């Protein structure tokens, strides 16, 4: 008996001592350590898709609804394409009224760099693939994504590369090519950032596949992006060449027949690169509904945050297919509005406002080349590109005859009409060194109602540069704030 009294507790204690040491290693079940994430071709495939996952989940950039910067909304409301519906929730009026400050601004900065990190992760480990045939494509995709996001940062936070307000020596945005957590770069210069973007895109164009699908970056997308970047850089011939290389792969801007389906994601016509958003995707537990920043259903009505400015609505001709595809007549509490139809969703039982981010379309590349042709004096080619687009938009269109300034104006007008509500307008005005000059109309469909709170932003005003959040500057003192904040 006495033995039992001793043995039982001793056994228990001993068991307690030895059983547990190896249990101190507890590995996660839904994640892998970085060092195991890049071993096989399939790992790289998933890491490449991870770059787009980061894009979808950038809550103040590409996947955003109404938080600044929602890529498909904010640049239009910063400019003159949209006006705040007075009976909406008042979202983003801080941006619409140019009232942002260093402590009340967009967090797009950090969101963008998390995408860049995903791309750099692939590039740093690319040698793990050895000479595998898939290597070039993954490297190209990562380079292209890195350049694309840096370019958007440059457009938002820095001064123009070219044009009357160009300031190539002014601070750019840090061009990050490492995943080193100790890296705290300065902003470099506008020109320096621009050169890095161009270099990455040129290299990517050589490496990337032609057929990755429009849900991923591909050869046409890289050339298309290059044409955009060169246009901002004032490198007209390079812009033309890049656009030509892009259009050689993908030249169809989408016919009048299929055009409305682009915005329901029912066709891929005219789309070069889009960020796919699925109904099961979640951001902060919520579905990702990029159209929420524009309008939401309310009972049988639609209540909008931002509606089409009256002067822009007047520019759409009745023969223009975009009138129906872009503009949506709504009635809310007895008043008529013209809302934006592009982001109302796919229909067919999917959530309202759930739709892909159409990031780059053939139409833009045509317009990029047309603009570059026009500036370089090749008016025939410019008109050819413009008509290639217009013939697919206007019913009964007969070839244009514009020349000189009228041709340039026609290209600008078509750019505004075609790319409205796709995050282009603000950057186009900024690139050209133009002011924002809003109309005096109100928010109602007939132009009455409550007008803009502020109408004019002079060219060169400090508010053309969005402030970098204060806390980011505190975390990296090498970042300098934009002037005036």
């Amino acid at each position, binding site marked *: 008996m006495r033995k039992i009294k001793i043995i039982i507790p001793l056994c228990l204690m001993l068991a307690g001592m030895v059983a547990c040491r190896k249990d101190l290693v507890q590995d996660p079940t839904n994640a892998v350590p970085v060092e195991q994430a890049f071993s096989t071709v399939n790992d790289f495939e998933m890491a490449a898709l991870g770059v787009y996952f980061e894009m979808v989940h950038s809550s103040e950039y590409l996947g955003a609804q109404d938080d600044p910067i929602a890529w498909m909304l904010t640049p239009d409301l910063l400019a003159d394409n949209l006006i705040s519906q007075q009976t909406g929730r008042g979202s983003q009026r801080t941006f619409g009224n140019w*009232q942002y400050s260093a402590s009340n601004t967009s967090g797009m900065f950090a969101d963008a760099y998390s995408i860049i990190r995903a791309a750099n992760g692939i590039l740093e480990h690319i040698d793990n693939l050895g000479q595998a045939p898939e290597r070039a494509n993954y490297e190209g995709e990562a380079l292209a994504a890195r350049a694309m996001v840096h370019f958007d940062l440059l457009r938002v936070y820095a001064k123009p590369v070219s044009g009357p307000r160009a300031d190539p020596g002014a601070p750019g945005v840090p061009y990050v090519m490492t995943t080193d957590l100790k890296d705290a770069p300065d902003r470099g210069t506008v020109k320096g950032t621009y050169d890095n973007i161009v270099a990455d895109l040129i290299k990517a164009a050589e490496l990337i596949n032609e057929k990755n699908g429009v849900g991923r970056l591909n050869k046409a997308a890289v050339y298309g992006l290059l044409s955009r970047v060169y246009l901002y850089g004032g490198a007209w011939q390079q812009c033309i060449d890049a656009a030509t290389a892009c259009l050689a792969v993908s030249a169809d801007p989408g016919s009048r027949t299929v055009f409305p389906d682009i915005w329901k994601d029912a066709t891929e016509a005219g789309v070069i690169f889009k960020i796919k958003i699925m109904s099961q995707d*979640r951001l902060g537990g919520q579905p990702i509904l990029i159209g929420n920043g524009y309008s939401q259903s309310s009972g049988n009505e639609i209540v909008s945050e931002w509606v089409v400015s009256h002067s822009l609505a007047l520019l759409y001709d009745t023969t223009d297919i975009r009138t129906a595809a872009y503009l949506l007549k709504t009635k809310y509490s007895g008043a008529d509005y013209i809302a934006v139809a592009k982001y109302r969703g796919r229909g067919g039982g999917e959530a309202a406002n759930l739709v892909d981010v159409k990031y780059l379309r053939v139409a833009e590349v045509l317009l990029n080349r047309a603009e570059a042709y026009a500036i370089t004096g090749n008016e025939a080619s410019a008109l050819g590109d413009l008509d290639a687009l217009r013939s697919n938009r206007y019913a009964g269109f007969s070839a244009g005859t514009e020349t000189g300034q009228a041709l340039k104006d026609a290209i600008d007008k078509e750019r505004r009409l075609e790319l409205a509500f796709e995050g282009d307008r603000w950057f186009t005005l900024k690139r050209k060194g133009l002011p924002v000059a809003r109309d005096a109309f109100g928010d109602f469909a007939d132009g009455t109602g409550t007008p803009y709170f502020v109408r004019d932003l002079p060219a060169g005003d400090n508010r053309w540069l969005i402030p970098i959040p204060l806390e980011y500057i505190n975390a990296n003192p090498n970042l300098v704030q934009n002037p005036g904040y």
Partner: protein
Amino acid sequence: MKKIVLTCAMLLSLGLHHVMAQSRLVRGRVLDDKGEGVPGASIHVKGSTAGTITDADGNFTLDVPNENSFLLIQSVGFGDKEIEARDGAQALAIRISSSSHSLDEAVVVGYGSETRKTLIGGSSVIKEKAFKDVPMGNFTNMLQGKAPGVMITGQNGAPGAPAFIRIRGVGSINAGQGPLIVIDGVPSTSEAYTALSPNDIADVTVLKDASTNSIYGSRGSNGVIVVTTRKGGRKGSPPQITYGFQYGFKSKTPDKFKMMSFSEKLQYERDLGYTNKYLKPLLAKDSLSSITEAPDPNVYWNQLRPYETDWQKEILRTGRLSQHDIAINGATDKFDYYFSLQSYNEDGISLASNFVRRAGMLNVDYRANDWLKIGQSIRVTNSSSKDTRETNNVQNPFRAIYQYNPYEAVYDFGTSSVNGYNRTQQPLNIVEALRTNPAFSNTLYGASTTYLELTPVKDITLRSQLGLQYVTSNGESITRPGSMLDMVLNGTPTGSKTDDGYYRFNYVWTNTVQYKKTFAAMHNLKLLAGTEFTKEQFKSYSLSSKGYPYNTGLTTQNNGSSPEATTTARESWTLFSLFGRAEYSYAGKYLANFSVRRDGSSRFGKDNRYGTFIAGGLAWNLTEETFLKSVSSITSMKLWASLGTSGNNQIGNYDALALYKSGGYGGQTSFYPGNIGNTGLTWEKNTNYSFGLDFGFFQNRISGTIDYYNRYTYALLLDRPISPTTGYTAQMDNVGSMRNSGMELSLNLDVLRKRDFLWSIGGNITLNKNRIVKLADGEAIRNTGTANTYYVVGKPIDVYYLQQYAGVDPVNGDELWYKKDGTTTNNYNEADLFYLDKTPDPSFFGGFYTNLSYKGIQLGIDCAYAGGNYIYNQMWANANTPKNVTTSNMAMAALDYWRPDNTGASNPRADYNQPAYNSDRWLQKGNFIRLRNVTLSYNLPVSLISRVKMQALRVYVQGQNLWYSAPGFKGDPEVGTGAQEGGFLRSGAIALYSYPQSKVITFGLNVTF
């Protein structure tokens, strides 16, 4: 159901009454600490109706039945005493001691227990009474104001919601700030706080200093709360059956938000040039587009008059609270048992809000022989609740009560109605939403503790204990097809449903050996050694689908036509510990202890898993010294000091690992950089020293404690900001340090100790000073959990960093802010930000009480107070910012805005195109005092109730949160978290429409058989 329980209880109690047999006469005298007779003490034979009271000299005689040989002696102001009634001519001399701070009172500490006299360190014991029948759903809230050094703030006022507990200040920045809670020797999961029926608590000990909490090693740095549940009682106690019932009403505590009336809001809108959506169609009939164009606005306003609504009335209600408890306890020589059942129902103050708890518990200890003891404790609780949406948007009813306009109807409003409800300007209707979008959850919590205790040889006790905790929690959230929210989300009537929940299994296996011996009657030695292993597994899921039929009963996932997001997660953590403690005392005069613990945790970097924590303490019982023994006015006096270390491991399970996580893109699996990781991550450490004095004078008529503490936390687990160009904005690292120091004082005074009349008062105060000593790179760091507080070296944790409001420009009505040079500006971008010496944490807090009893009548009053803190009142800012005129009702205070004819106004020019400007204009002082509890009760005389076979019958009425005063703050000052959507989980930093606190009045009774 309740009736059945009650009937069973009655039957049981009747069956247990014994037939009176032979009896014998017992004589005795009841004496106090000084040996003087205690008059009026009641003497009871346990398990029988026989009883008497002592005479003026404390003498009594009593007929005692043979089978029942235990006497229970009770007297106001003294602790209960049980003794065996012995035969014989010799009178019993029964000493009872004063109830406050009785020196022999047991104090449960880590892996053992002490008495008041042998305890080193400033632990506070909170007795059963503080938890008994308090009309709140969670015992953590009941600790408010009860013990020095313990700051309690309700997370919000939702039924059953827990409290934030901060012991001796906020001790960490990014790791957990709450204490470890140990229930009956088992470190508990957070669900246990809600699951535990407060009536099952025997007492709670708060371990605050190093000598007591260091034995908990890596989890002791924020203090330890040790909860002991009720047991059977002293040996030989016959079964005692108690039944309690209470019923009451609850309502929102009043606030100082005076909102605009129907006419005021409409006039204000017109003055600002805003025309609301109800007026637009009315004006359109007369070809007008704006109310400012109307020659007589009353023509249109009057048409809205029929729709005038008091939204508070529509959304809020008087909640009801009811509670039933039944408990049976008793003990024989070998067997000790406590059994209880509870049913607690609390309806919230809003529609669609309630909390229901059903709990059962059994504690059993069995002493098989002189060397073997085994025991088992089982607690199983089911809690269910209907929940309102804790968001900062239109789905939150507690935002709606302030924001819906008084001219907006609840129901049909012509064109803008949906399903018979008016859509409102928000644009949703919360009354409709609460009915059509129900959310509810159900949590099952089971805890089992099994132990084996062996005494193989004299003085050595070995104990092996296994604590198991099992939790399943399921939530459901429904959006009915065609409801307003459904139309917002889906555009067409679709309906959606989300099921989410989790499973948690936690086991703790503890083995200890204790050696206890007294040498030469002077040297007392106690040694303890042990091991402990903890493992927790956690799994969670979330399923949602869309496309539901209109039938409200069909809500399972397979009723949905299209599945949406499906996620599951699985996590685990482990902790392995070795610990030891040595205690020595010399003749009860000099006490010393020393403890050591070594912990290994799965949460830290591979080479940094282990940490060792040591502590020691000394105490000196002055009253044991001969020079004080003769001073009769000093009853007790003890000086103590302690020093030691402890740690904090309350971080994410995988924070040390750099990980690629998986997520879907375009329906395919992808991997993205999801966790920054830090292989060097290790314990947050804490060095804590404190000293104090415990005293009692005049037979403890005056007693109290004074403590000083100094807690230095270093190697802080801090989210150190890094350049956002890395793709991350912060990395957790062991950097920086922080100090909390302060004084604690508690004092109890028995003003009157008369035969029938006792009056005591007491209270406590804590003064805490928190300073951040060091941070990474010396930079200020923003707290992402509050939006406007920062961590700054040399300042308290979380100082507000804001623009400073400089009033209104009397010339043009512009809002002005200060610049660094002291001048003012009307350009918000030029306004400088200032680190204000203001924080969300109180610098002083505590509570006070008074208890009066006269014969059977007792009155207890408890107050709690706190102050020195500041709260960013976002609710008040929203109610006063003209921008919100378009969607929300506003405060009457907003009417006093600058106009050319009102240049001295308190608010700037009202322009609804101006954005909302954050500044210290909305920072308000949080000082408050609150009448926490008032209870008036009456114990019916034993002589009366013994005829109906009862031992005691108590009836009471009580009020909780009946009154408060918070002169500097708009709203209820007990601010926990803001609505969760904003992620503002920092206690007290922002007032943002969280579930309001409530005022409760209940009536109840307790019967003992």
